[in-house]
């Protein structure tokens, strides 16, 4: 965009002159040129980030509507709206205004439901997006920092959801806050103080809704927005990853340029997501606050659950026993200033599982880099089966999460499958420890088996089921050879081998080096090597491997 060309260019139409005027000052065409030419590979699993983004936009739109009518005050009032079963009931202004949004403001109930469904979809799509990034190894260099930004986004989206869930001040959300209050109070010594500061006195106090409101509509969305901006900026800088395929390598990106094809698609996709959310909001009720009644600390309803993304923490609380082998988990410790309680049966389940999950989440890219000594940039993704140990670790974490998640609905599992609630709890306690281990072993075996199958097919082709009898009487099954593109997918991947510890400059293999070697063995000792060109040749007597060598095959790619 040199100054000379710009000053000499005079558009003919008046619209053209106006746009040119703006462009010369804003530089829009430069930005468009830069971004419009970004290439975005096409695969359905790459679209969950977009789903998250779009549901976030929907949240902003519908949330703004709700703020017009919601009043976060905890002052007492008497309901006088059109929902008969609550007429005259004493309640907080916050609950009253949520009911009014639902029953007396045109389109209010629809917007509430849009907002809540979009919130559930938002966290769900963020999670699936994260799983996709993990299982394909997209977090590897240079994207580790973006993975961390993503991790912060998961936590923020859960926080956004929880603060929003608490706003209507109905019985359900109040029960949820009560649990949070209990968890805060279980923090030794300072817990009670924190709770009193947070609630402005003894639970529930008269401040919490207003404070949560500020967090929910101001602070958390602002930070999410900032994080999304950083996140997407980094996606553009790093360029998107791609699945392995002929002509795709760590130096190019194969796909469509962002504009106009991809941008048009993305715009359309926004409306699809909006449409799905709007349909759910129109046809299915969510969080029917009028059923729960106003918050009152004494009643607790059966079936009180948090929204799904907080469920796993609730599940941990449900699984934790109060006594372990005859020892109570609640202790009263006499201090000089008085007795302090240590309620491990609340503190441990609230902090430990979440602590484990997030620690592993944030450190995993560095952990794997340290073990593999792999300092190269990766822009080509792994198929999950081709990184069996990582995939197995991911599944172990996933099962761990799901056990806790299931525990949050233990009562509904009991009533709907006609089993005893106690048995559900015992089984889930067992699975809490065994589930991840079994998932690890099973996943790793399955991944290796799939690799073996791939190798088999690459070498000998696909079984056709056609049995042919040869002239000399032998029966063979005819195998159909794959075409080069398909075969490339099956052989074009890296399969690292375990690395022994490397002595340092003094010739000593240090302790940490030994640990690294042990982990490397753990990661890579079970491996199925991809079929090599030589093996392929021996396998079916064709010299096809050259055509599928990624290094000299980028005719179809757009390089960056």
């Amino acid at each position, binding site marked *: 965009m040199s100054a000379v060309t710009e000053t000499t260019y005079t558009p003919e139409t008046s619209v053209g002159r106006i746009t040119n005027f703006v462009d010369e000052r804003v530089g829009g065409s430069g930005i468009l040129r830069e971004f419009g030419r970004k290439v975005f590979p096409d695969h359905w699993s790459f*679209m969950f980030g977009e789903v998250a983004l779009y549901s976030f936009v929907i949240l902003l739109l519908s949330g703004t509507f709700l703020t017009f009518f919601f009043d976060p005050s905890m002052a007492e009032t008497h309901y006088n709206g059109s929902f008969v*079963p609550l007429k005259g009931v004493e309640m907080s202004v916050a609950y009253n205004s949520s009911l009014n949004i639902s029953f007396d403001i045109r389109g209010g109930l629809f917007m509430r439901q849009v907002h809540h*469904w979009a919130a*559930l979809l938002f966290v769900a799509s963020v999670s699936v997006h994260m799983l996709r990034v993990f299982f394909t190894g997209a977090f590897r260099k240079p994207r580790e920092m973006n993975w961390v930004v993503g991790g912060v986004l998961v936590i923020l989206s859960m926080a956004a959801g929880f603060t929003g869930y608490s706003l209507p001040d109905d019985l359900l959300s109040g029960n949820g806050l009560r649990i949070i209050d209990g968890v805060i109070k279980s923090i030794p010594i300072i817990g009670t103080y924190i709770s009193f500061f947070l609630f402005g006195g003894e639970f529930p106090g008269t401040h919490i809704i207003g404070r949560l409101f500020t967090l929910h509509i101001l602070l958390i969305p602002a930070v999410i927005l900032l994080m999304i901006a950083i996140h997407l900026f980094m996606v553009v800088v790093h360029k998107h990853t791609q699945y392995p395929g002929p002509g795709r390598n760590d130096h190019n990106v194969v796909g469509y340029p962002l504009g106009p094809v991809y941008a048009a698609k993305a715009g359309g996709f926004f409306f699809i*997501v909006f449409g799905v959310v709007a349909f759910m909001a129109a046809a299915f009720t969510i969080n029917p606050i009028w059923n729960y*009644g106003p918050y009152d600390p004494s*009643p607790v*309803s059966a*079936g009180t659950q*948090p929204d799904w993304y907080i469920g796993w923490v609730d599940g941990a609380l449900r699984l934790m026993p109060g006594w372990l082998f005859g020892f109570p988990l609640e202790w009263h410790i006499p201090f000089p200033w008085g007795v302090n309680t240590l309620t491990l049966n609340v503190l441990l389940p609230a902090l430990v599982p979440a602590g484990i999950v997030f620690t592993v989440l944030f450190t995993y890219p560095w952990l794997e880099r340290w073990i593999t000594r792999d300092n190269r940039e990766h822009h080509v993704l792994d198929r999950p089966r081709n990184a069996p140990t990582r995939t197995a670790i991911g599944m172990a974490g996933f099962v761990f999460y799901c056990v806790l998640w299931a525990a949050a609905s233990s009562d509904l599992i009991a009533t709907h499958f006609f089993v005893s609630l106690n048995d559900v709890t015992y089984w889930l306690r067992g699975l809490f420890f065994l589930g991840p281990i079994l998932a690890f072993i099973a996943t790793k075996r399955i991944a290796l088996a799939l690799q073996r199958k791939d190798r088999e097919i690459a070498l000998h082709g696909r079984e056709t089921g056609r049995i042919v009898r040869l002239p000399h009487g032998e029966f063979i099954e005819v195998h159909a050879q794959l075409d080069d593109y398909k075969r490339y997918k099956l052989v074009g991947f890296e399969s690292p081998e375990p690395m022994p510890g490397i002595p340092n400059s003094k010739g000593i293999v240090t302790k940490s080096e030994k640990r690294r070697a042990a982990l490397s063995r753990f990661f890579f000792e079970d491996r199925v090597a991809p079929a090599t060109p030589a093996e392929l040749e021996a396998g079916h007597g064709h010299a096809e491997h050259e055509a599928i060598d990624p290094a000299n095959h980028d005719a179809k790619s757009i390089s960056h």
Partner: protein
Amino acid sequence: MKALSQKRRHPLAALVLLLMGLMLTGGVYAVATTLNQAKADTTTYSANDIKEGNKLFIANCATCHGMGASGSASGPSLVGVGAAAVDFQVGTGRMPMQMQGPQAQRKPVQFDATQTKQLAAYVASLGAGPSVPDASLVDGKGNAANGGELFRVNCAMCHNAAAAGGALTRGKFAPALAGVSGQHIYEAMVTGPQNMPVFNDANITPNGKRDIITFLKTIEADGSPGGNDLGALGPVSEGLFVWIAGLGVIIAFTIWLTSRSS
């Protein structure tokens, strides 16, 4: 007066005080409960009802509840449970009980209205107990808002705030209350079937019970203003729905969108 204040410090004074307190509460409780029952037992049954009821009872119930409804190893004594208990248990199909288990469950009703009345008459004749409520108490024309509050405080912990039911320990459960008649709701409260506590008239007044019935009937009739209620099970069904249906549809769209280009 002085003597009394000196004896106050006697070592047995506390014991005497405790005994007095216990007797007082016991006495008040006894008066309160008999009041309840005395008031409850107002319906009159003919001698023929009782006779027919006895026959039905011997044929259908005595194997478990014993002759004279005095109880056996497989069923409790029914002396004093009242007509309301029989009307509820037989009228909802729970009795005669189908099988041993954590709790007797609803099943198709086996006796018609007359037979149920006769069975109730027979059991009521064995000892005073809560009777079948007056029609004016179960008409569902009370105050729904007040009923809602009573329901949330007294019943929601087991039956769920939207009366969708909930789990209790060891396979027991509080059932969903949609479709239960006003009369049976009332009887459930006064007799406390199985794992449900009794809510006598001192706990919840007859008018309060009428309001609860009104509340339950109102929310049942109103349905779900926001669309399909997904079983009214709260966030669990909502979460399942968004993962399976919501995300499922969106994944289908993503696959469709990306398949178009290649």
